């Protein structure tokens, strides 16, 4: 199973995302921002970072990159796409997901082990979770405050498109505690927290069992591999 990991100039978590793909049993394929060729991958991860220095608006320039032309087209055709943090911002700027992401309401970058509730487990990237399962995923962002119009929020709530909600602490002032979204079809998922940082014991978030042993993020990647196998 080949999963593409896109590198824009300024992408930071591409190597982490590739490692997560490998640990889940997939083959990571590096995709370059300036190349429209998707190299026949079965799914795509848009990793975190500061693509193009976050100039203009987070994700805005990346959304115009040649590789995104191909990804948007493929996503509209059903290709599974996961946007993490800056990748989520790129998805929003590409109009694959609605709304926008703005500066955290407390004005600071925040890095924390974040509890989330999985509110949709029928997407390509979440099908291995239980509905309403609580998971812990590292979060690290400066511009993670989710905003949308009342109308959009109503639609997201009504159609069950809110995939992850922050639990206990809303770390950035996101409306309706929204941490992540899906599209109607369920192939495109975006979220601010970083599942690729919770895939390997010893390097993830703390759990009650042992320090840094949290691997809740691995299921994102096994989910997509499963959904592709079963497709």
């Amino acid at each position: 199973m080949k999963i593409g990991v896109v590198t824009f100039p300024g992408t930071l978590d591409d190597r982490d995302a590739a490692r997560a793909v490998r640990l889940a049993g997939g083959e990571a394929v590096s995709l370059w921002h300036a190349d429209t060729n998707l190299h026949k991958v079965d799914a795509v991860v848009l990793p975190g970072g500061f693509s193009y220095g976050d100039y203009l608006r987070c994700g805005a320039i990346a959304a115009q990159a040649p590789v995104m032309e191909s990804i948007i087209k493929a996503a509209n055709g059903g290709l599974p796409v996961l946007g993490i943090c800056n990748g989520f911002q790129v998805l929003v700027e590409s109009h694959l997901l609605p709304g926008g992401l703005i500066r955290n309401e407390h004005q600071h970058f925040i890095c924390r082990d974040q509890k989330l509730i999985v509110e949709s487990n029928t997407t390509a990237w979440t099908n291995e979770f239980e509905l309403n399962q609580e998971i812990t995923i590292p979060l690290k962002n400066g511009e993670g405050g989710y905003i949308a119009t009342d109308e959009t929020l109503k639609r997201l709530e009504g159609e069950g498109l809110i995939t992850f909600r922050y639990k206990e602490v809303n770390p950035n002032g996101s409306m309706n505690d929204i941490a992540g979204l899906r599209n109607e079809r369920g192939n495109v998922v975006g979220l601010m927290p970083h599942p690729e940082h919770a895939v390997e014991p010893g390097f993830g978030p703390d759990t009650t069992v042992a320090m840094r042993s949290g691997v809740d993020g691995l299921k994102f990647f096994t989910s997509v591999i499963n959904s592709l196998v079963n497709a």
Partner: protein
Amino acid sequence: MGLFGKKKIASGVDTTTEAANTPDKVQPYAALGLKDDEYARIREILGRRPSSSELAMYSVMWSEHCSYKSSKIYLRQFGEKVTPEMNKNLMVGMGENAGVVDIGEGWAVTFKVESHNHPSYIEPFQGAATGVGGIVRDILTMGARPIAVMDQLRFGEPSNPDTARVVHGVVDGISFYGNCLGLPNIGGETVFDKVYQGNPLVNALSVGALRHEDLKLAKASNPGDLVILFGARTGADGIGGVSVLASETFDSTGPAKRPAVQVGDPFAEKVLIECCLELYAAQVVAGIQDLGGAGISCATSELASNGGAGMRVQLQDVLKRDESLTPEEILMSESQERMMGIVPKKDFKKFKAIVDKWEVEFSVIGEVIAEDRLYINWGHEEIVNVPPRTVAHDGPVYERPVAFPSYQDALNNDSVHAHGLFRQNDNASELAAQLVQIVSSPNQADKGYITNQYDRYVGGNTALAQPDDSGMIRVSEETGLGISLATDANGRYCYLDPYQGARLALAEAYRNVAVSGATPVAVTNCLNFGSPENPEVMWQFKQATAGLADGCLELGIPVTGGNVSFYNQTGDVAIHPTPVVGVLGVIDDVARRIPSGWQDAGHNIYLLGTTKDELDGSVWSEVVHSHLGGRPPVVDLAYEKQLAEALNAASEQGLLASAHDLSEAGLAQAVVESVLRFGMGARIWLDEIQQRDGVDRTCALFSESTGRVLVSVGREDDVKFVGLCEARGIPVLRIGVTDNSGELEIQDVATWQLNDLRGAHEATLPELFG
């Protein structure tokens, strides 16, 4: 104006010919920071007066910051007080951009800490940001992939209104730049003290990993190789920063110095990192140097001098942000995110393909020549013609006057005992109140407010980070081979006794690495002091460097590099001497690293080491009594080494559930941090410590005696662990057990709900700065 201005400048260039023809022209060398005798020496080297471009180069390269002219004679001992055994894993020692240590399995690690103090006071955000950028480029220059950063910060008193300005600016700057580079921030220090009010310290450490064969050096030795400047364009930022800022004491009546601080673009640096690593992999650079302090002046002269060769440079080929820059300004500019590569002509095509891929701008500005001479032209006119070594390496060396401080004896005599500081030994509720007062004081409180603004996850190799005693990073994903890093400095101890203070900092950083399960192998330092022109400051410097060098020899680990920051003083008032010491450790498999807090109920808690009546210079004396006097704790480095070896052996046998070093605020602080790390309760008793060591309850709780570690051990490993300590001569005493009570009970003192303690420990910084 632009055109006219440019024309005027072009015609007004001071050439070397002009310099030879007008020997009596008055030059502004003093304003550039050069002393009379230094200017005379330059004239002697050149056999004429320097051109204005040459003067610019010498002035920045001979500044205190670049030439180490006041510190050189003392820094030598780091290279002299060594044994062959200490240097056996040292691949590159002092003098290069950063030291390189062989850590086994074909891997090497390079690390260094550097100051960015003065710029960070003037413009905290950019000063701190470019401090991170500069040290990361030093690491990159060695051929390594940077893998982590840490910051050592000292601020003024929290209650002073200016402190928040500096704290917010510095933390935002580090957060902005470091996070955007994709380097995990794995630890550091934050200390508040009024002595840093007008002179905050912003030190930045970076560490990188490389395969042995990828080592790069900053030298240009093959005639015909191209000299290529790549990365950001050269602008007017940071001009004169080195000489004007870092080598002069702040004077409140002087002109505004804001324009001399550099401005950073972390995106450009991130792209530059990836671009350089690809250039290294393609083996197309023969030598490389980053541009930091002193910019092109430094890079050209150092590359040529290190390679024993020379260079011909056309300065008009430098890509500029501002076409009106004069040659002198171009030579001195400290614009960030620039590198100078030495590229063999045959590899130029490959070089160009890689930099083009990363959309990094470059220009070929010259060529390496066999003659050891640095020629720089501005168009057809020669503006620099110097022996590169005289610029880069043969700067002035001073043996500054040294004087034992007039206040020192009185300070040392004013001990906690002599001062009659009252102890609440028999008043449990007062002792309990002191404990809470201490763990919630700004220096002892939880630093999450700051460290949570840094990304500690990126890279996926972070095995330990704040709030653990050291940061730990996996280097090899195949075997788990990794490194551990800790830094320490206690300005209060160093003020009382700079020799012991430096050894104490070394001992604590060493112990912090050891408690993580790693073996300490090398040392870096950042020596922050007042004005070297003050003989009493020079005495502190002399003592501290001797203490550190002697200490390293005793521990058997070499100093691989470092940095000196002088002139940290406002008017006549110097900071406390603050030699930041960083210790690097190696661990064969990060999977066996030791947590710093308690995570399982029913484990026994042991205190290793003995407690003495050592409260002089302590947190207790500061927070409870606002007192500083006496002598700092005694440190026995031979014993510290034994202790580290015992911890390592226990870790290898899997006997330790946790280990936490005791240092500032002693046992009280360590116990509170250990319960709060994972929210595990505990019951602690002090009476056996008091009986065995002959100390009172205040000492048992707050003494800062060295060589002590708090460990937790599962019951099944008890006998084995105690046996191991006894066999190695490490004093070991069971002082408590962990439990699920949700409380911390210190018998005969108090019982606290963990939530209450957490509130007290974690609320302080957000309340002050949030």
